[in-house]
């Protein structure tokens, strides 16, 4: 068995406060998958992600994590950027290293191995020459790569991305998609990505989860393109 890690949704209903966004969701995600989550605004994409991260409990049903994904700190997350970050004084290195926080417990300083690992991840994403630069001076694409490097420090096997291409021009978006493809192909990193950029993201992803107000579609990307594109 190579596919030991699994994330299973069984009859899950998701929502927050008085709003129900998704009902009766049943699917399982295996290691090595590359899933692109699409849907209109308010269809519950962010809620779906929050439930995987464990920030939001499902209203009904169960989300089961198996194998390596059992621990909470096995997930690398790339959230949407906040306005406060745009003028934040911090060096790239400081930000990438902060990915290790969940492994630190009460230890107040980073270990040597962690710093080396951080450098390794920066090299992987081609930002090692930026490491002493200030985050707010970088371009949007570079900023996303910094945050991606941080997510890789937090978790090696499962990445969750929330609208990573928002605000990027088409060149930088393509670059980011290529990086993700590489990570998925060569390093067997599982990727779950929420996006508005449906057309392009669907071409890169292996599977598609389309959330709608009255149901959902989950299947391979080619199947999705056949059904939804005329």
């Amino acid at each position, binding site marked *: 068995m190579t596919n030991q890690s699994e994330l299973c949704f069984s009859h899950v209903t998701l929502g927050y406060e008085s709003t129900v966004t998704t009902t009766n969701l049943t699917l399982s995600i295996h290691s090595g998958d590359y899933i692109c989550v699409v849907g209109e605004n308010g269809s519950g994409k962010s809620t779906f992600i929050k439930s995987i*991260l464990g*920030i939001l409990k499902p209203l009904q049903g169960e989300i089961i994590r198996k194998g390596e994904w059992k621990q*909470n*700190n096995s*997930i*690398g*997350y*790339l*959230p*949407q950027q*906040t306005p*406060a*970050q745009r003028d*934040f*004084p*911090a*060096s790239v290195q*400081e*930000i990438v*290293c*902060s*990915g290790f*926080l*969940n492994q*630190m417990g*009460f230890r*107040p*300083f*980073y270990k040597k191995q962690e710093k080396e690992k951080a450098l390794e991840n920066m090299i992987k994403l081609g930002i090692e020459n930026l490491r002493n*630069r*200030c985050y*707010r*001076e970088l371009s949007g694409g570079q900023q996303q790569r910094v*945050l991606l490097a*941080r*997510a890789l420090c*937090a*978790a090696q096997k499962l990445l*969750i991305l929330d609208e990573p291409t928002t605000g990027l021009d088409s060149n930088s978006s393509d670059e980011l998609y290529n990086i993700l493809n590489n990570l998925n192909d060569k390093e067997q990193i599982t990727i779950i990505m929420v996006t508005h950029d449906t057309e392009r993201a669907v071409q890169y992803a292996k599977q598609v989860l389309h959330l709608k107000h009255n149901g959902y579609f989950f299947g391979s990307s080619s199947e999705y393109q056949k059904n939804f594109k005329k």
Partner: protein
Amino acid sequence: MHILTDMLSFAFIQRAFLVGIFVSLCSALLGVSLVLKRYSMIGDGLSHVSFGALSIALAFGWAPLKFSIPVVAIAAFFLLRITENAKVKSDAAIAAVSAASLAIGIIVTSLKTGINTDVASYMFGSILAMKQEDVVISILLSVVVLILFCFCYHKIFAITFDESFAKATGVHTSFYNTLIAILTAVTVVLGMRMMGALLISSLIIFPAMSSMRLFKRFSFVIISSGIIAIICFCAGMITSYQFDTPVGASIVIIYLAIFFLFCIIQKIKTICKKSAVNKK
């Protein structure tokens, strides 16, 4: 040098220096995180709560610090909670809380004692307000704040930079937010007696604002804020002694001068960079 030895011959000025340096340092460090998280107004709101609490303590003859620190800590906790769940806009909440506690403070004092010098010193600050016992408490608490800050430095950085990431990877963000709120509350109460309720928030905001002009690393911003805080406090004290101006106000003016100085340096730096690029 002569002025300094002259000043330090007074016991109450020695006390003020000691407490002031510690409190300025604490508020500068916490201030970086608060300013970046857009919580600058919390310092101001808490100082008004602290004013209300202190006047109640004064009116009933309770120990001022021991009563107001818990009260302000609770207020800080709730103000942060309100900010988190966003149903009430946090700026409105802070404004309402600070006005209300100021009102309570004023009513209690006017009924009990009338606006006397003690109350005035809480409004505008006075180094004479420092008593021996307060000095001990202030220094102890400041040291605790500093140790906790250093110990949680990386976590504070992560939460300040990106709370949702920190939360998703399993950092207890609400715990650390509460910690920051309580540390801020303690610092505000301690600093208020010297700076005054109306001016204490400058200790929190100015060092961070000035440092952020020049430095591009979080660690450098923190260190520079600490240094600015200590230098400005000492300079303010000396100015106040020399020209007979109120301590709190003098310190704020020095902070303002440093801020402008840093702005000018930043401008010069960008101009130099531009011309260097043009030459290439």
